[in-house]
């Protein structure tokens, strides 16, 4: 069995930290973009221009889906992985115990 992933994880111990920070930065940028969209939509709506509000809504919805998708890539971290009943490492332990 290949031990490539294990070795990679051992040599780059900062990886999870960097991924987590990157996900947070992207989320913050997305939320900032949504605030700007909402502000612009409100301004144009009050100025009787409805087209902008609709476009801004679809843009905001798309950004929300991107944000929700980013949550999927949140690294769990080693401690949580061990505690998680559904983690691959624990499932292996379960299998061993069952045998």
């Amino acid at each position, binding site marked *: 069995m290949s031990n490539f992933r294990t070795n990679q994880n051992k040599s780059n111990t900062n990886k999870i930290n960097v991924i*987590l*920070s990157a*996900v*947070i930065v992207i*989320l*913050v940028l*997305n*939320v900032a973009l*949504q*605030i700007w*969209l*909402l502000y612009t*939509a*409100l*301004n144009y*709506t*009050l*100025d*009787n221009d*409805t087209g902008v*509000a*609709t476009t*801004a*809504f679809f*843009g*905001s*919805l798309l*950004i*929300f889906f991107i*944000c*929700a998708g*980013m*949550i999927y890539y*949140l690294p769990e*971290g080693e401690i949580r992985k061990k*505690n*998680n*009943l559904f983690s691959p490492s*624990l499932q292996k*332990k*379960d299998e061993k*115990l*069952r045998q």
Partner: protein
Amino acid sequence: MNKDIKNIKDKNEEETWSQDFPFHKQNATLVGRREFAKMLALVSGGLALGSGLVAAKANFFPKEKVTGEHFVCNKKDIPVGGGRSFIIQGSDIPYLLIHLEDGSFKAYEQKCTHLSCSVYYKKGTGQIVCPCHNGYFNASDGSVMAGPPPRKLPQLQVIVKGDKLFVTAPSIESV
């Protein structure tokens, strides 16, 4: 064997609930980066919902337009450089009718487009002023000259019939 599995499951369940509902104060107040990221996604959903509400309001419940002509006052009731507040029947929006120094009459919504403070015409300057945050509008077309207001004042068209002043919805060209 089954007992071992049960013990592991019990231990995990205990740790899961103690993570969600910690009984130590320092754990309860701690917001980890993962929780922060999840909260950002929740805020993002809230903002998308807000945008949806704005779009729904704009498309399905638009602002009611002024219909017909409405009498405000006689010409002599407003001196040059003066103004008069009025409300159109059936509406609760305050409007301001002003008599400019060039002899023309203009009517605008009296609510500042920044935070809805009441605006007034400053005599001799050609400016409509919002005293709350020093917003300045051009009295001849309602456009923003200075200050925090994000858009121009909504305008009504003034019709002069003899000595009487009427207002109506603005024509499309003047919007």
